[in-house]
């Protein structure tokens, strides 16, 4: 019974989504090599906190997403060490970046300079992984998602990102956000707010590991006893469904709640017509006359 209690309380499944947008890392203040080192040390710290902890790392690129690390794929010996984690992750990352480069060059629409990372795809992969863990047995670790985001939000992914956020909320999976870029992320602000996660934008990027260890390494059970940074404000702006741009005032379909920046006669999402007039019963001519 003690083992079961410990298992359900403080055992974590941490899915880390890493932003690998090359357009961001080319001009980032923190080099990707240093960032990767902080990430590897954080993953190893999670694995050292509890031998039952489960860590998965998903890379979000420009044209694709993939798993670059899964702690359940341990070797036959069962011993996980820093060198092995680093070797596997770096090799997978190298292969993924090369593959994403080929996919991006073949996809002409992403060739412009301000492309966004596939945050929605990465979140979907994370949620699918968590669902598989949920359905594998009665006892499972407490899942959560940590997003390490650097590039700006892509308004065209608003619908997919919001669907992922609501799915995480429904599954009671918190989404933590750590912004390593220069500007805040409205998507991740809303994600952490809705799912009950922690949103943080570090000031000292050279101390990224300290932020990760102090704020994001705690399991969900321990968070009820700790005082973590609180979000002082959330950017609740949305993106319109017709032009995929960020708006703060618009029109909403009363049937499916789709958001538009201009008035439409028909909803492009659910097909409702807004200009239909009910038949006027009083216009029937009087038969007595």
């Amino acid at each position, binding site marked *: 019974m003690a083992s079961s209690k410990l298992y359900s309380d403080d055992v974590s499944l941490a899915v880390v989504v890493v932003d690998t947008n*090359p357009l961001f*890392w080319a001009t980032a203040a923190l080099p*990707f090599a240093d960032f990767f080192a902080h990430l590897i040390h954080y993953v190893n710290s999670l694995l050292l906190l509890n031998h039952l902890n489960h860590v998965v790392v998903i890379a979000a690129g420009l044209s694709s997403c993939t798993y670059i690390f899964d702690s359940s794929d341990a070797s036959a010996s069962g011993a996980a060490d820093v060198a092995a984690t680093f070797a596997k992750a770096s090799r997978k990352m190298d292969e993924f970046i090369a593959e994403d480069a080929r996919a991006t060059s073949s996809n002409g629409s992403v060739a412009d300079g301000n492309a966004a990372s596939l945050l929605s795809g990465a979140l979907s992969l994370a949620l699918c992984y968590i669902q598989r863990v949920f359905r594998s047995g009665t006892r499972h670790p407490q899942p959560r998602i940590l997003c390490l985001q650097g590039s700006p939000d892509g308004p065209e992914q608003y619908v997919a990102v919001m669907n992922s956020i609501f799915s995480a909320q429904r599954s009671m999976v918190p989404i933590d956000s750590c912004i390593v870029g220069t500007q805040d992320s409205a998507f991740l602000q809303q994600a952490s707010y809705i799912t009950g996660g922690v949103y943080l934008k570090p000031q*000292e990027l050279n101390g990224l590991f300290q932020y990760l260890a*102090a704020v994001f390494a705690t399991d969900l059970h321990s968070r009820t006893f700790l005082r973590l940074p*609180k979000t002082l404000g959330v950017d609740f702006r949305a993106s319109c469904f017709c032009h995929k741009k960020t708006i703060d005032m618009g029109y909403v379909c009363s049937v499916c709640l789709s958001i538009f920046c201009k008035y439409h006669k028909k909803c492009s999402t659910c097909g409702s017509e807004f200009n239909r007039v009910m038949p006027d019963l009083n216009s029937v001519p009087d038969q007595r006359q």
Partner: protein
Amino acid sequence: MGSMTIGAKYKTTLKDPGTTGVLRMNEDKFTFTPHDPRSAMKLNVDFRSIKGHKFNKVDGSKPAPPLLNLSKDSDKGGGYMFEFDNVTNRDLSRDFVAKVLGKQQGTIPPKPNVPPENSVTSTGEEQLSAAEMQRRMKLLQEDSELQKLHMKFVLGNILQESEFWATRKNLLEDEANKGSKQRPGFKSAMLADVRPSADGRTNKVTFSLTTEIIHQIFAEKPAVHRAFLDFVPKKMSEKDFWTKYFRAEYLLRTKNTVAATAEAAEDEELAIFLKNDDILAKEARLKIKRVDPTLDMEADAGDDYIHLPDHGIIRDGSKETIDNDGELARRTLSQDLNRHAAVVLEGRSSDVELTDTKTVAEAIARSKKEPPSSSISDDTNHERLVKVARMTEIEDLQAPRSLPYAPLCIKDPREYFDSQQANALRSLGGNNDGRHARNCRLSTDDAFDHLLGQISSIKVNGLNYPVIQSDVALKVLNELNEGISRSRRLNLKNPQDSLLGQIPRRTRDELMDHWAAIQELLQHFWSSYPITTSVLYNKVQRIKDAMTQIYQKLQDIKESAQPDVRHEISQLVKPMTQALDAAFNHDLEQQQKSSKSGNKPNGF
């Protein structure tokens, strides 16, 4: 301002070839000296006599000489017309004249690039009633902030009086409803039966009348009122009038028919009081005509119950059925009661101070209106019925008839700023000290090559030990503790820790004034769209200028803020500048839309 000298031609008429000379102008006067000393066209005119100036538009297609006309008063007539060599010289003279006229008239001179309107479209001061003006002045005196806004925008020629008060109809309505007072009415007691006082020794009786009693007699008996206006003071004095009135009352009360008939034959004035009141009879007949004919009543002129011989109880309670002649008045108790009740319900319509009998009679005559003619249409009948139904209501017992309005809810700036304290610190750590995003733009392939190079260096160099320096870790922990403590302190909702409390008082008051001004301007700005008339266009231009000035002041406040409160002031100013930016962007979009539509006259 100085003076200016320019060459010009003086023309008496448009077709006059003109006299060449030199035009000199200064602040007080202008002179014209012709080149030909023998010419008699010398001018020396004070600018005080000049009331306006006009000029014509010179187009490239139509050759016309540039002209400037300085006009005098309309009653004196005439003016001075000058022709210049080119448009530039004319414009310089026009600007100089505009400044001089603007200075002496005490108003802002018109912009040089805008030609004056040929048709006078500006309406004069609207006709305001004295009560409305008093209500506005009272509101301005009570509300100092409203007075400040009024002084800034209406006296500053940005908004007009009607525009300023159009958005404050609810205030004026509340003020108007407050001004309604309770009206004095009539007593329900019937005072017409004035009892005289009599001493026992002689047959003399004395009637004591007050203006209240006289007012009620006139209201209940229109014939007596009319007789008073006709006879007093032309034919008889007021005392003689009331002596005859009470003589007639005495004769009617004693039912001495023979004596009444005899005295009516002798005294023509006395006979008026002994006859039936024809005014009341006419009113009764009109009321019967207003009955809806669909009720299927056989209504005729005789159904006013006045002519029925045996109907009702006689005034003094007896049931005398003697068939007297129809000349003398017969009044039943029900008729008198109905008349008295109608008078009480109508109320005292005049507010004139009841000082003497003449004033009372004239006041009632003014308030009384002529009864309408018998030939009336159904619509008029319906309107009259509505008015009659409303007239019979006692206003004191009714709810105030203010029209339902939905006031525009302008949020209190203090509540807004207090609620913004959480959002103000959203960018806690928002200063980008630790990161500098370079603006160099790389192609996608170069970016991928860079990233692959980083990963290669990772593979070659391996992991660094330690990954973080101890002093950096300490700094991070201190920052986290500071941030958590600050957010915890802000969550206490202590009013002293409000965002406004950390700003010096002078700056805070200044920001409050700017916020109130911005709300007023934005309200008028957004309500002016779509722009359909030139009046709206000019209004939007004035509002934009005012908003630009406030925008500049906000920037100055941000730049001159002290370092310790600069962050808070910047957070407070941001929503104001965002609201102003939205208005400016909307104006730009409208201009682009209009210019775009102009480029395609045939449409898409």
